[in-house]
């Protein structure tokens, strides 16, 4: 198995921490931008400028999830550019980092 050019394998992982009820809207945005996939992880709690929170499924007002998607640089930038103002209003956190994927065609 000869190693293909590393740059070809490089993609961007976008991680967004956001309020659980917002997920539907971020998914809609992801579809609009042609992202092929994403995964959502649960959280337990955290702390930020707007105070502390603990997962709270009863009121639903303090449940956050981590939305993760891997794609190429252009899509990642376009996607996060659209989301930024919304996420700012919601006090969410958005991170990008470089990852290497095995089947680059998939992302």
């Amino acid at each position, binding site marked *: 198995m000869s190693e293909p050019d590393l740059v070809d394998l490089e993609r961007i992982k976008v991680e967004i921490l956001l*309020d659980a*009820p*917002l997920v*539907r*809207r971020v998914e809609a945005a992801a579809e609009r931008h042609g992202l092929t996939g994403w995964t959502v992880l649960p959280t337990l709690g955290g702390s930020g400028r*707007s*105070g*502390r929170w*603990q*997962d*709270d*499924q*009863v*009121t*639903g*007002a*303090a449940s956050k999830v981590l939305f993760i998607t891997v794609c190429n640089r252009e899509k990642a930038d376009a996607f996060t550019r659209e989301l930024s103002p*919304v996420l700012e*209003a*919601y*006090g969410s956190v958005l991170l990008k980092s470089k990852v290497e994927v095995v089947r680059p065609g998939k992302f």
Partner: protein
Amino acid sequence: MPAGLETLLSPVILFFILGALAAAVRSDLAIPEAIAKGLSLYLMAAIGLKGGVEVSQSGFTAEMALAALAGLTLSFLIPLPVFLALKRIGRLDNINAAAVAAHYGSVSVVTFVAGVEVLGSGGLPPAGYMVAVLALMETPAIIVGLMLARRGGNGQVHAGNGLLHETLLNGSVVLLMGSFLIGLIAGKEGFAPIAPLFEDAFRGLLCLFLLDMGLVAMRRLRESRALTWRLAGLGIIFPVINGTIGVLVGALIGLDTGSAAALGMLAASASYIAVPAAMRLALPQADPGLYLAMSLAVTFPFNITIGIPYFVFLATQVV
């Protein structure tokens, strides 16, 4: 008022106090979120069913329609004075005042449930249709709240296409109304085989849920940065005034003592399920720490311990 004291010493309330004390001394006692959510769903199914079964016995009456109308009207009107008080006395901005006001126009399922327990054990059970009134009162205040927020000149109300849908089809509304209809269809006979879970085990499971609510309420109180003394005071004055109005309206439209007291509890209570979730979506700039602290950490404990006995007492006087 020995009836009030007796209420305070019932296990249901004592478990709430135990939870609050445990959180106050920073014990690591915690109920898994999945269990708390499961208990919350169970309670809604159980009271929906019981209400429906009762209405299947009593049939539909004019009184019922009046109670529904009264509930809806209270739910639409209560946010208005609450909004003004929050701005003038509580010194909140438009957005936060509107978000909190929506909570007080809506209702708290557990306050209602605890109140029904007290009324039932005191021989004054409210009519079964009050469950439907509860369900009707859950959402209108959300719309009023959003209108108040908009009127304040704030363009950032995210009330987009999805919101109305998400509000009206909120899980708690669907489950309450659905269980009510199931109870109505199944009737007393159909309910009998499921009564061991939904009736006999009800008070015990309510104890466990209130243990969790005590933990949650006190933790919120401790961690809240936004709660001022003025706001805490309002969180006590609102239920007293709204609840009194509710009981009086109930008496005026001819409800029986238990139902009038229950209408008072509904008016007095502040939402902790449907509204916080809707506000988080529609008014993201509003501080959830603030509205949950007022609703869960001030008004809810007040109603559970003092409000309920007071509304019962008031209803026995005016009906």
